[in-house]
């Protein structure tokens, strides 16, 4: 088991962190998706192809490396389709499609993955997907449909749909989380391509781990923000961080961060090196990190006092991202239920 970053992983972290500090500082995230930042992220740092296999032009890295990157994009509250594209690449692990993976690796294609089932007639797809992650920003939608061959109702295929193509109607939604878009996508006979059979297992687990890495970044940045404020804000003649009422809460938040990081490293390692441990590690990651992230973001907002409740302050951006992330893969109880099932309780 490997819970400590390697030299290369630390360098990757520094590169991404340094890039985002200048290219996507916090005041900018309210403007939403900036395609130029996204292009540079993929061009200069090669991040879009990070986990794409080398034979399709990617770097062939693992979830451990992706986790390092998602932690930084999470900490920066980076808007845009990076997480959705990473989700898609993870879903294609078991269904490698040359065209799509090559496009992702080259940074030409931003993709999004949705779990909602489409209907498919062999060449065109139909259906309504009510909340597609960064659906306005993505070029390609990947979603499951019944394979229609067996008749036993079990088999599913993964379809790819060009979102700018015919038969697609997209409507931007107004999300709670201002830093990441959602869209309603209605397909009415949109041309669709079969990528292959939908993997029966493992994809959901990988998404859980990837999301937990982003949540780790969100909670880290939220804690850093309130710790910095507690060192400069004065009340009753003292820095507020010197009061035990504040200090002790921050110490507890630090404990949550340490445990969350340990779980994320473990789950990413399991995904890369020990698949047998992945289902439990993935459920643990969402069950613990999702909650811990929201609690830390909530307390970071509260400890700011009244200013943290204003629209102008950034605290609510972290708070809302943390809440949106906590329920992104479904109500959190499903992760706890899955954990109970895996533990054979």
């Amino acid at each position, binding site marked *: 088991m490997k819970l400590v970053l390697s030299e290369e992983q630390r360098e990757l972290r520094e590169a991404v962190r340094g890039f985002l500090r200048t290219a996507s500082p916090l005041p900018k995230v309210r403007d939403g998706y900036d395609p130029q930042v996204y292009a540079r992220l993929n061009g200069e740092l090669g991040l879009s192809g990070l986990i794409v296999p080398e034979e399709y032009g990617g770097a062939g890295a693992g979830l451990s490396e992706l986790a390092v990157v998602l932690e930084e994009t999470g900490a920066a509250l980076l808007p845009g389709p990076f997480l959705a594209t990473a989700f898609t690449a993870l879903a294609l692990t078991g269904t490698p499609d040359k065209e799509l993976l090559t496009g992702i690796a080259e940074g030409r294609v931003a993709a999004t993955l949705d779990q909602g089932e489409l209907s498919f007639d062999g060449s065109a797809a139909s259906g309504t997907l009510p909340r597609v992650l960064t659906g306005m920003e993505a070029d390609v939608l990947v979603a499951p449909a019944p394979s229609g061959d067996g008749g036993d109702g079990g088999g599913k295929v993964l379809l790819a749909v060009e979102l700018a193509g015919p038969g697609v109607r997209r409507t931007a939604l107004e999300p709670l989380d201002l830093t990441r878009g959602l869209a309603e996508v209605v397909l009415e006979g949109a041309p669709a391509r079969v990528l292959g059979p939908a993997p029966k297992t493992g994809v959901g687990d990988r998404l859980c781990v990837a999301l937990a890495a982003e949540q780790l970044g969100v909670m880290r940045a939220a804690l850093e923000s309130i710790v910095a404020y507690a060192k400069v804000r004065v009340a009753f003649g003292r820095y507020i961080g010197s009061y035990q009422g504040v200090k002790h809460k921050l*110490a507890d938040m630090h404990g949550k961060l340490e445990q969350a990081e340990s779980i994320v490293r473990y789950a990413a390692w399991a995904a890369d090196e020990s698949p047998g441990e992945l289902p439990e590690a993935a459920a643990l990651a969402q069950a613990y990190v999702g909650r811990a992230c929201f609690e830390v973001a909530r307390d970071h907002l509260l400890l700011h006092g009244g200013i943290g409740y204003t629209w102008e302050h950034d605290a609510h951006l972290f708070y809302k991202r943390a809440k949106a992330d906590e329920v992104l893969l479904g109500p959190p109880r499903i992760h706890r239920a899955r954990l109970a099932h895996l533990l054979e309780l």
Partner: protein
Amino acid sequence: MNLADYRRAAGAWLRDNAPSDDHPEADGIARAKDFMAKLYDAGYSGITWPERWGGQGLTQAEERAFAEAARDYTLPTYVFMIGLGMTGPTLVDRGTDAQRERFVRPLLRGEEIWCQLFSEPGAGSDVASLQTRAERDGDHWIVNGQKVWTSVAHHADWGLLLARTDVDVPKHKGLTMFVVDMHHPGVTVRPLKDMSGRANFNEIFFDNVPVPDEHRVGEVNDGWSVAVTTLLHERLSISAGVGMGGQKDNPASVEALRRVVDTDDPLVRDELVELHIRTRALALFNQRLAQETRAGIFPGARGSAAKLLLAELTQFEADVATRLVGPEAMLAGHPLARAISTAPGMALGGGTNEIMRNIVGDRVLGLPPEPRVDKTVPFKDLKVGTQT
């Protein structure tokens, strides 16, 4: 010898020599001393300690290899832990050559048992406000006062004593460290029953106990810096062990509880899942700290976060386990009655949860310290202990 050979040799030695169980009772002391002597003679006591004072002069790698080999055994080393983990390293770091010559080898060989005498009824978290006096009398010091929470004092031959030598200076600047003879007739050791009914620690009374000046550790009035050395070793030895042990004997673990509660009840299942999540979260954090230490990243004050989390988990698991099992856990002989009775100990010993949160806040997060009124005032003008 390479590491693998070292570990194999240690494993073979343990197989032949490790006793089957550990009971820190009086009749077990002779047996424990016997084992320690064999351990020392085989070269497995004081593995990283300097050769000059009786150690083996090897590295952390050999120490770890031995610890790994020893994980399958419960070694009867309990009564030596204060000496090995705290007072011995303090003497090696801060003692005179004569003190090291006299004390270290018998400590490592288990010939002499040590205790540590810092806390007092009026000075717990704030140990620097202690009131036990040591007054100079020619080439001796005369000690009067009271200490408390002293583990293994009822077996101890020697104690590392922190006492006040000057009341006219601020509290941290008037303390001195000594080695005191626990067999002197002026030393009274009274076992102190804790809330679980066990008596693993003691209160100690000093009535005109003479200590020769050559048993002073460090300079006069520089005892606080010596104590900091001791406490650093204490936290290291606690956090090195934190959460690394198995769960097999824990009656409040998910594994133990699932056998005795109705797991078809969804409310029960959810409690067990929560317990599993918290247990795994802390276990993984401890493993990460251990991996970092191995990679040369010193955990420092982050060990206090691990200790705090362990204290909270210990409370939580005993609490949830007794709620799940119900009335039958409420008989004194039940393992969970014992678990709920001993649970508060982890949140108090080795620093309370509040002190741990202060340490994490100040030293990990770098938050501003609390304003202090006690650092500049002469000790004699300071309020200490319980005032009514």
